[in-house]
């Protein structure tokens, strides 16, 4: 009988298993990928023009995006830009082919000087606006413009409220707009960012 009990104990030891552990979501760096967007609306009657759009809700948009993930700027380990996209929301009365440079700058004080930039951000060469309809088109970025955006994102983490300006320098439009055939468009420009969240123990 003793021998049988001893054997059963050995068997029970072999029967081991089942553990548990603390929640393993601890301390993993998570990544939020999302967009901050602005609509560029314009109507022009010439083929060569300069227009600008102010993004004064840059911080608000980011805070709202992070809030959707139950996160705030203080939860972030870092934040950076990974890309940009453009999408035409409205193009009237017909398609236009444009060649333009889009520059970006930081201008925290309305009417004041630029705090950073302007720097080349995106260039379009013979770009059909109608072709930008539908899915967002990823843009080929310029490194100096990316740096301005990354600087602004870093400033957000420091509690600042950067105000961004997109300056569109349009050199040509085909066909050339006129008073009787004005070019009107609404373009959605989005900066795609990644926010790295350093997880804390739950």
């Amino acid at each position, binding site marked *: 009988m003793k021998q049988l009990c001893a054997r059963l104990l050995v068997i029970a030891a*072999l029967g081991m298993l089942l*553990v548990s552990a603390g929640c*393993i979501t601890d301390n*993993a760096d998570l*990544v939020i*990928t999302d967009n901050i967007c602005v609509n560029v609306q314009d109507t022009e009657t010439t083929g060569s023009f300069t227009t600008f759009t102010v993004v004064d809700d840059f911080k608000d948009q980011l805070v709202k995006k992070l809030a959707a*993930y139950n996160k705030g700027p203080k939860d972030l380990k870092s934040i950076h830009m990974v890309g940009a996209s453009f999408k035409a929301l409205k193009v009237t009365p017909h398609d236009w082919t444009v060649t333009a440079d889009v520059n970006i700058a930081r201008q925290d004080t309305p009417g004041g000087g630029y705090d950073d930039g302007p720097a080349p951000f995106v260039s379009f060469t013979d770009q059909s606006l109608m072709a930008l309809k539908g899915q967002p088109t990823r843009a080929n970025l310029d490194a100096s413009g990316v740096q301005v955006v990354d600087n602004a994102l870093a400033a957000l983490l420091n509690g600042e409220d950067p105000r961004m300006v997109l300056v569109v320098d349009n050199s040509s439009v085909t066909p050339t707009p006129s008073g009787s055939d004005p070019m009107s468009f609404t373009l959605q420009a989005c900066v795609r960012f990644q926010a790295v969240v350093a997880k804390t123990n739950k």
Partner: protein
Amino acid sequence: MARHRSSSAGVFLFCVIAAAAPAHAQDLLSAYTGPNAQGYLAPLVDAFRSNLNAGLFHSARIEPNGFHVSLEFTGMATSFGNASRTFMARTDTGVNDHYVQAPTIVGDPGAVFTSGYANTTYAFPGGFDVSNWYLSAPQLRIGNWKGTEALARVILYDTGNKEIGSLGVWGGGVRHSISQYFPGIAPLDIAVAGMYQHARLNTDQGLDIVDSNLYTLALHTGMALGPIYPYAGLSIDWYRFGVHYETDGIDPIDIRYQTNEDFQLTLGASYQVGFVAAYGEYNFADQNTLAAGLSVNFPFSSRSVTQ
């Protein structure tokens, strides 16, 4: 690098899905869609599959007839090697994308950064630094009819979180003795088996966050060597594993795995004392699994693997 985390499958899935619950869903997965998602989750999926295919038998002997039932408790453990901790992830910027060695879900917790085009930076999320994971399953074996027995197992785990729901794993299958038709091969035992196992994480709203189906065919063999019964098995499986989550404010997460004809080799031995048998085995698969268990047999005098 010190690795110290272990988790049971229930805890692991709970935590992973907890991170993927409503507001957190894209934290974990937004950087991972398509092939990256598969690479990131692969160790978890492979370990789960390997676990489910383990502990399904501890003898290839099935008596031609006579009632028997056995209640079994099987534990499975998978240890993640270094190769499981990283995978080659691809940036997803649409311009000059390239591959980077990034943590898998069981890898290092730190995010990995790489430079992209135009001086952009791209980040891959960290893993959860898991070195081992465990699964345990009670199972019931009942037979015999013309050398055939049935097996069922079930795992129920209530996460206690309404948004995540409960994890349920259940499966069933049959085994049939082949050696009964070939008395000349005695004492070698041979059996074939077919098994289906389903796992799902189901919210209180009826949404299946995790849904997996595993289909396994196997060939089992073994023979009594004194008090020990060594056994071996070769199985082939088809696995479907999906993670799906929808909630307001984020894009739906929908990740699907489909693997076909993956093999698993099982080598083990069982040892019987009275009406209790203990068994241990090692399973060679994409993620190797160590399994051990106890089997309590009824009638008490029946089904001695060492006979």
